[in-house]
């Protein structure tokens, strides 16, 4: 191959990669513009203040964000309350405590958990967990926020465990040895050295898991009862932002207020996930200066 040809190939690939890079940005921007355009159309018909203060979502007259947002936050926070301690605990166990066979089994098991389709998790919720909840608490209906939170926790766990385990594993052995060398016990080392050093990665793990939970649709659609009433607690049947969009988008007439309203919901969802990511990024950077 002569040199000019090689230089030309080099240039071609540079252009190809640049196009790929810009395509990504272009897709992101156009999705955002699409959401924004339709949301503006929505707000020309419904006052933004009504959208954020109305406590009902009832698309003939009421377009209130609050019950859906409250539902989404309720299941997400519930899921995190379960998944964060469990996930970080498991990650610590895998990288610091487990040895041999257990360690070799646990990692692939966690990865397989993430391969379960969300429909199957939803199924699990309907058939196993929700009857369990209604028996345990004496409820007539177990399809509620608690059910959704448990399922979302299961779905967020693999992400949290995998990312947190990587972060914990990345803490240099030399630093741990320094701690043991001073007479520290295992727990003192984990608590004072390993966890703080792995903190940025653990935050990232939590945020990624949370992003997964907020955006999850199928499971919550199947398992939370889809009630439009304002949620009052974990035993309420609820309907999240995602489930609402998924349920209503198929039937809504094109370019009606209702149609635009669903885009407004999608934009809110987009902003929440973006906020989670930006927040994660900033926390990570603040901690990283000690590394």
């Amino acid at each position, binding site marked *: 191959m002569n040199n000019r040809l090689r230089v030309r190939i080099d240039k071609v690939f540079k252009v190809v990669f640049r196009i790929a890079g810009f395509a990504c940005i272009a897709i992101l921007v156009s999705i955002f513009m699409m959401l924004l355009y339709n949301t503006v159309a929505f707000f020309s018909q419904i006052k933004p203040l009504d959208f954020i203060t109305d406590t009902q979502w009832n698309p003939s007259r009421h377009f209130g964000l609050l019950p859906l947002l409250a539902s989404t936050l309720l299941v997400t926070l519930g899921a995190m309350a379960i998944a964060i301690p469990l996930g970080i605990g498991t990650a610590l166990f895998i990288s610091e405590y487990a*040895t041999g066979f257990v360690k070799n089994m646990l990692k692939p098991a966690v990865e397989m958990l993430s391969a379960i389709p969300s429909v199957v998790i939803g199924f699990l919720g309907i058939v196993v967990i929700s009857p369990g909840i209604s028996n345990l608490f004496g409820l007539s209906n177990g399809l509620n926020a608690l059910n959704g939170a448990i399922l979302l926790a299961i779905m967020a766990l693999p992400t949290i465990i995998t990312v947190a385990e990587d972060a914990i594993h990345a803490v240099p052995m030399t*630093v741990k*040895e*320094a701690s043991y060398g*001073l*007479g520290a*016990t295992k727990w*003192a080392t984990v608590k004072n050295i390993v966890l*703080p050093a792995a903190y940025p990665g653990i935050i990232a793990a939590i945020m990624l898991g949370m992003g997964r939970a907020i955006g999850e649709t199928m499971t919550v659609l199947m398992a939370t009862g889809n009630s439009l009433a304002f949620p009052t607690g974990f035993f309420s049947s609820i309907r999240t932002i995602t489930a609402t969009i998924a349920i209503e988008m198929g039937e809504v007439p094109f370019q009606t207020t209702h149609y635009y309203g669903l885009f407004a919901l999608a934009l809110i969802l987009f902003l929440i996930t973006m906020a989670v990511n930006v927040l994660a990024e900033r926390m990570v950077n603040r901690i990283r200066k*000690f590394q």
Partner: protein
Amino acid sequence: MVQAALVKTKPVIEISDLNLYFGEKQVLKNIQLTIPQKMVTAMIGPSGCGKSTLLRTLNRLHDLSPDARITGKVTIDGQDIFHKNTLVNKLRKKVGMVFQKPNPFPKSIYDNVAYGLQINGFPKDKIPQMVEESLRKSYIFDEVKDKLQEPATRLSGGQQQRLCIARTIAVKPEIILMDEPCSALDPLSTLKIEELILELKNDYTIVIVTHNMQQAARVSDFTAFMYLGELIEFDETHKIFNNPEKQLTENYIKGHFG
């Protein structure tokens, strides 16, 4: 003879019939060695001969590697360190270690030193004073006194290593193990650490691994020469360097002096 020289000293570490295996591979072979108190003992030998492995046996860091297997006996102050009643945390507090590459904790300068004091349960109100004292003893206080809350990782390599020494002596060990503490440092920082070692030997027993012959000659009272997992010769440093008994030792020393 080494016995003659050792008569004037008090033994603190006594190693007998020590063998160490990583899996199938034998890394330490039948080591017999007595390390005298409040002296500097250097360990020299070609790379891979087991110097670090021997050093890490003394504070039981091999407990962390599941495939390490040890036979033989090591006593410190007469106490068998492998005995089931020996508390490994207590042992490691007593036998401090400075590592090859400076490895400060990802914490502030102050917390790097305070950490060991906190986990070992020193009284809270004494800690600030003890931190300062250790930093002074390690000749780094003046350089860091205005930035104690800054991350330790911002210090230069030489400063980090002196900080690691400060953190080690803070918990009041009796013995300090140093594994090539200067190998990652520039000559000036190396000089500072060497001065510090000479200062510290008034209070501590120091065992230092070094691949630098001149350094061993400058700082140590006794020198152990190791080769392929065996202890070949142990004697007063000037004897090892000027008039070794074994041909192997002489070849190694000569080879290194050029």
